């Protein structure tokens, strides 16, 4: 397993590099060995532990709309195939996707597809 060293700048993980512990001490930036720790770029560091970045409501809504658009794109082919299994359920699902952004479930609770494609 590679030895992973996080480079910390202003309390945030700026980069994670492959590095010996001895070389990490040579670097001028604050470094922490994260070989056994869940730590990626953008995580915050309080001097003891790492925390994944919290997304703003705007970021969550943008991602949710992108997911919704992608789901509609993935299921486009079902619409003209009237003998597709659970066709009516898929049409209902697509309508739920379109209505989702105006409901209280948006963006946290996604509509559920009738089955996996």
């Amino acid at each position, binding site marked *: 397993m590679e030895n992973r060293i996080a480079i910390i700048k202003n309390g945030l993980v700026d980069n994670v590099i492959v*590095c010996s512990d001895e070389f990490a001490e040579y670097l001028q930036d604050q470094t922490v060995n994260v070989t056994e720790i869940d730590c990626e770029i*953008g995580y915050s560091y309080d001097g003891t532990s790492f925390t994944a970045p919290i997304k703003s409501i705007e970021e969550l809504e943008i991602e949710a709309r992108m997911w919704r*658009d*992608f789901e509609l794109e*993935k299921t486009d082919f079902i619409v003209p195939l009237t003998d597709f299994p659970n066709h009516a359920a898929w049409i209902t699902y697509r309508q739920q996707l379109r209505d989702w952004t105006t409901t209280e479930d948006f963006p946290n609770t996604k509509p559920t597809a009738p089955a996996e494609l």
Partner: protein
Amino acid sequence: MSNFSDFFPVAEGGGGGIPKYQEFTSSGTFTPSQALIDAGGRVFVFLVGGGSSGSGEDYGGGGGEVLLFYDTLTTTSAITVTIAASTTSSTGNSSVWNGDDAGGTLITAAGGVTGNYGGNFQSNKLTAGFGARSSGSTPGGGAGSGVFGYGAGGSSWAGPGVMDPKANSGQGSWHQSSGGSGFARITWFE
């Protein structure tokens, strides 16, 4: 019969001969020799950022940036070379050539970026492989091939690309694997 030196004559005052090189699969330092500085200080750097991991089944990870460039060094001070670690994140880590430590240039090979629902992308990067995309069981596009395989894009469920990257390749991966770590090779004459 022709000789190699007929086409690439040895420069006056130095140069020619067998190239020297140093490879980095882990971070370390490169210390220019006085002979290198006396010969003009020119080094050729091959620098690869880390790949990213795929996002869900439909998006392969992006390959790390692959840079090939010259730098001119003026002192024998040690240069720090940091090598990107592998990652399970959709953002790859960076590899950095701190050439400015010895009068050269600071250059970063950025980590790969995984596309997300709207199509894979590698914005403002040179020679990084984009990850594959698929829509359900339909391939939406294969991954980029990178440079000599370095920095190639990762596969999606139905889109061709790298599944499990080789170490120090900078390759992107599919979503259940880690993007490849970075790499650097410094070549010079003295």
